[in-house]
């Protein structure tokens, strides 16, 4: 289907088409977005517009009078605003119209166009861009509907596909595992053995999911104390941690020790002391800190850096697979949106309404003429002309008003009402 009226266009650059050196020059700060939205909306060619600017993309969505001119205008605007010449940038720009623009927005909001497939941040950024534009009244019926729809699509994709459910970084995969072993991390404790950067990151991630009790052990006690301070935990003497092992539900090791510092018998004792409550070991040290046989113990789960990396790789692959079913959802939503747009067009409805009236008139006049055999040809002609003019007069105002209303916010409501009242959809 072709969108007759709305003339949607989109012009932008993203992380796929444009290197960061260019992207950073094209970014709009929130203040700049406000000023730009106002400048654009005052242009006679532009009916509605929204600017989306994140570190990975700069995009302007607009409803314009003429799509080709609109695209050029938006490109020119971006270049002029950032004082770069258009020829210099032109190869970086992509632009989409109508259906393709709708599809692109749905892909962006569902995070299919993101650097990390399925990440959650982009939806918030699209929402912010929309509410800013809406507050400044630079959006109207079509973009409002389009963006609201885009949020719905993103929600559907998140709920119906697994695109966002698998962690794609080492620390998120580790947190996910922790949450599959222990439901609620709040009542659980983590022990850091060694103060490696990645261990710190994983610990922070765990803390953000509610872990409250943190122990830090390091060969250099001062390092343990300082990291414990940033994580709001307690520092342990390095010789002490082995006796304290049973206190930890999650143990993250990252020491530079050349041999295993946590052995099977040690863990066996800890598990016994814990009355078989599970322990999750995350060994991100190379060479490894924990004897691999520890994983053979019941209620003990051990993941080393390679294990986590292969989980991450599998997760990325899964997300890519999920992206395909997300595309199906998007396609069907694009079609729905198109139908809505087509329904905005007043012309077909007006034609149908007149056809309906005309066919009734024709039938009734023919019936009357058959009964009045005395009428001359001239009289018959007069009868037709008179009835036609009645219909034209009755339908004139509704036609004019319908055309006018379809330009407004509630246009589709009027169309729906007319189609319903005249019974045009059976």
């Amino acid at each position, binding site marked *: 289907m072709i969108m007759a009226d709305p003339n949607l266009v989109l012009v932008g650059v993203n992380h796929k088409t444009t290197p960061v050196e260019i992207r950073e020059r094209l970014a709009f700060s929130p203040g700049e977005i406000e000023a730009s939205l106002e400048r654009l909306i005052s242009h006679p060619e532009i009916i509605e517009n929204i600017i989306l600017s994140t570190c990975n993309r700069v995009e302007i969505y607009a409803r314009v009078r003429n799509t080709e001119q609109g695209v050029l205008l938006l490109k020119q605007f971006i270049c002029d605003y950032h004082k770069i010449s258009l020829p210099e940038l032109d190869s970086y720009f992509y632009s989409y119209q109508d259906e393709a623009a709708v599809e692109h927005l749905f892909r962006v909001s569902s995070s299919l166009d993101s650097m990390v497939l399925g990440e959650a941040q982009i939806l918030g950024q699209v929402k912010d861009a929309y509410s800013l534009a809406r507050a400044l009244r630079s959006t109207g019926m079509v973009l409002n509907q389009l963006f609201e729809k885009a949020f719905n699509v993103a929600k559907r994709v998140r*709920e*119906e596909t697994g695109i966002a459910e698998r962690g794609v970084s080492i620390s998120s995969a580790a947190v996910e*595992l922790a949450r599959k*072993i222990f439901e*609620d991390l709040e009542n659980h404790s983590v022990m850091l053995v060694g103060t490696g950067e990645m261990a710190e990151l994983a610990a922070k991630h765990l803390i953000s999911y509610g872990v409250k009790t943190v122990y830090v052990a390091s060969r250099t006690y001062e390092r343990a104390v300082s990291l414990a301070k940033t994580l709001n935990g307690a520092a342990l003497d390095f010789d002490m941690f082995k006796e304290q092992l049973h206190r930890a539900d999650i143990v993250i090791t990252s020491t530079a020790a050349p041999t295993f510092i946590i052995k099977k018998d040690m863990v066996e004792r800890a598990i016994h002391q814990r009355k078989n409550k599970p322990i999750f070991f995350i060994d991100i040290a190379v060479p490894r800190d924990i004897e691999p046989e520890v994983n053979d113990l*019941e209620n003990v789960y051990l*993941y080393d850096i390679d294990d986590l990396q*292969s989980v991450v790789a599998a997760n990325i692959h899964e997300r890519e697979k999920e992206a395909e079913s997300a595309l199906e959802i998007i396609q069907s939503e694009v079609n729905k949106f198109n139908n809505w747009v087509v329904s905005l067009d007043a012309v077909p409805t007006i034609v149908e309404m007149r056809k309906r009236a005309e066919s009734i008139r024709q039938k009734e006049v023919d019936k009357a003429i058959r009964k009045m055999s005395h009428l001359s040809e001239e009289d018959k002609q007069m009868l037709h002309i008179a009835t036609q003019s009645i219909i034209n007069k009755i339908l004139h105002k509704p036609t004019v008003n319908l055309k006018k209303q379809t330009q407004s916010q509630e246009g589709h409501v009027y169309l729906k009402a007319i189609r319903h009242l005249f019974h045009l959809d059976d």
Partner: protein
Amino acid sequence: MFNISLFSYFGASLGYFVYLVYRKPMVSTLATASVGIGLLAHTVWMGLRSMETGHGPYTSNFEIAMFFSWMIVVVYFLTEWKYKIKDLGAFVIPMAFLALLFSAFFTKDVALVKDSHPFWMTLHRTLSVLGYAAFTIAFAASIMYLIQEHQVKSKKLGIMYFRMPSLEVLDKLNDKIITIGFPLFTLGFMTGPLWKVKMQQPVLTWDLMKTWPLVIVWIIYGAIFFGRMFAGIRGKKAAQGAILGFVMVIVTYFMHV
């Protein structure tokens, strides 16, 4: 009514499985609605029948199997309401369906009750069926636990890893349901001989063949129940125990029929 329940449970079983694999929220809602309709029809039908016969649904083989199915669904709804584990339905509702289907093979005739102590019979049979329903849920939770445990342990994180709840939740559910189910079952188990005594039948005449499996069932669940309290039995061992116990329940049942 009976057929409505049967078809509803069947539809819901399919629905929950589809949800487990394809995760369409609609399917899960439909499945839950289907179980709801089935339970309603089941309840009404059972109520009408009880009014007609003048006693609860536990006097014939048909009634007991059907009552067991009903109890599974009731306990499932209570669990689902408390724990919100949608996927549990995929493992529990098929059991309710099978129990109900199984009941259809028995005669629906009303059994002659020549019992002068209906109170003891009601107590004994209701408590036992309630206990068995609890064990059925524990069985389902244990299967889920073992699947999930295997995935985490072997580091092969398949589709189920993401769909199923955490080990802790599954273990907790297993714990709770046996903690409640075992005492109920024990009471049911003990009221049996009491009922016989009331009927003035000699207690020791019961068939040994019929009784020993029940004792084993009691020992297995007792071991899990007390083992959790005093010996730190949990997780995989508790799950394996609950599965073994349930298998024994089935064996007992067929030896009784």
